[in-house]
């Protein structure tokens, strides 16, 4: 005879298991989604915080300013430049290293955008605890903007035999020991092995600078810079920018700076016409020089490659020089 006292797997058990599994699945799914959203939120907030922290870097009287951005966890800052629109756009986003799940999210937090900032760095800069930001005024010939140069505590820059102005500038920047990982030495042997060597007289270093041809070669790619007008410490603003940034970012920011320069020149032209009507004359010399300057900025904006950008930047430099000379002769100076 068969044993009829076998365990009865009733419908209620079956129902409870299915329903329990569904509830557990939903709870796990919701938790995973929430954790993901929380990470995105934290990354986005970090990105925005970094962007806000970069605002005090705008210079007034001083030509150079440096700050340290301290982060509680290992962070990646992503820098994206878009040259479209009136002033172009600067996008900043961040990603925080997580000890749970994937270390880094594939896509960082939401980007925060600005139109009046110019960040020169690699596309992604990873820092353990600190990021260093150096602000350098760029005048061409009037102030165009402040260039913000960013690197992290994971990168050591070693400038080998730089010109005296840069050597003194580095001493001044690093004198209060806030800005680190940036030194100036006389020979390559004095640099630490893991450092990024920036050579001014020799070649074959991580970054080779040629002051004669005003070029910077990095990872086999060459970019060109122009000397900034204004104080001595501001002369090499674009050189610093080209050393610390990737070619794509650098050239995009140059075009954005040309756009800004064009708008400021238009503003100065309007001001010149207004002041002339009020007895403070700068016409007709300055408005015509400004018109020529604006035309040159358009050529920089539309440059197709690095060499064309170099040519147009030099032409704009000459126009800026002539504009400065004309302005200096006026009783009623515009800038």
């Amino acid at each position: 005879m068969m044993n009829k006292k076998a365990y009865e797997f009733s419908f209620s058990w079956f129902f409870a298991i299915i329903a329990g599994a569904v509830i557990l699945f939903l709870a796990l799914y919701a938790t995973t989604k929430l954790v993901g959203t929380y990470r995105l939120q934290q990354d986005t907030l970090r990105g925005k915080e970094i962007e806000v922290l970069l605002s005090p870097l705008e210079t007034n009287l001083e030509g150079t300013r440096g700050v340290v951005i301290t982060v509680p966890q290992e962070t990646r800052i992503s820098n994206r430049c878009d040259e479209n629109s009136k002033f172009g756009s600067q996008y900043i986003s961040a990603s925080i290293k997580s000890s749970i799940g994937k270390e880094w999210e594939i896509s960082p937090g939401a980007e925060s955008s600005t139109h009046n900032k110019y960040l020169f760095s690699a596309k992604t800069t990873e820092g353990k605890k600190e990021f260093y930001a150096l602000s350098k005024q760029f005048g061409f010939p009037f102030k165009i903007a402040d260039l913000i140069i960013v690197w992290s505590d994971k990168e050591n820059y070693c400038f080998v035999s730089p010109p005296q102005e840069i050597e003194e500038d580095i001493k001044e920047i690093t004198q209060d020991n806030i800005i680190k990982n940036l030194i100036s030495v006389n020979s390559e042997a004095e640099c630490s092995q893991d450092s990024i060597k920036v050579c001014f007289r020799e070649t074959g270093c991580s970054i080779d600078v040629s002051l004669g041809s005003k070029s910077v070669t990095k990872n086999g790619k060459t970019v060109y810079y122009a000397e900034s007008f204004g104080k001595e410490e501001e002369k090499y603003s674009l050189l610093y920018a080209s050393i610390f940034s990737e070619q794509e970012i650098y050239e995009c920011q140059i075009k954005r700076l040309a756009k800004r320069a064009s708008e400021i020149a238009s503003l100065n032209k309007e001001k010149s016409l207004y002041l002339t009507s009020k007895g403070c004359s700068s016409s007709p010399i300055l408005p015509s020089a400004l018109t020529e300057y604006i035309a040159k900025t358009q050529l920089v904006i539309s440059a197709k490659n690095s060499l064309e950008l170099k040519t147009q930047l030099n032409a704009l430099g000459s126009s800026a020089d002539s504009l400065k000379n004309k302005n200096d002769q006026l009783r009623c100076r515009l800038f």
Partner: protein
Amino acid sequence: MTSYDAGFSKKAQLKIQQMAFVLVALMIFFSLVALVFLSIWLSDLKGNTQELKDKEALEIIRKISGTPEFTFTSSSDCSSCIDLDKVIMAKSMDSYQNLFNLDYLLIERVYPPATGGECTRSNYPNCNQITIIKKTEDYGLAPGAFVTLASWSSEKNSFKYEIGRIYASGYNNEK
């Protein structure tokens, strides 16, 4: 005709109903907990966003005199002054509406007291305030700061300096 009759069918149905009620109650409970959690989280997020927006507006105010579009460069005696002549020109240029992440930016002449209302190119300098950016009526609280204003005076035939106040409110992405 065949008839099927299980003696426990009503009891089982009752159990299923009981369980269904418990499950529904559980789901409602968890949904409520999730709703409370989400509302707290979202209000925290909104708070953070507002805080960052205000911080950014304050930083912009603090540094606006260094902005090339506003900084006074015609003379070397006041490099932290705002050039009012440039500001009035910038007001009429559409491009400057989107340069800063601001919904509202106003410069007011405080001392010596001025009258005449909003400045335009036609009534300038006989006016007392310049609204450079006003993207919306609902720009919230606009913090202010005192600044020095510089402008050309045709009567004095030189630059004159006044005390002004600048107000700004951060850009709101939610709109």
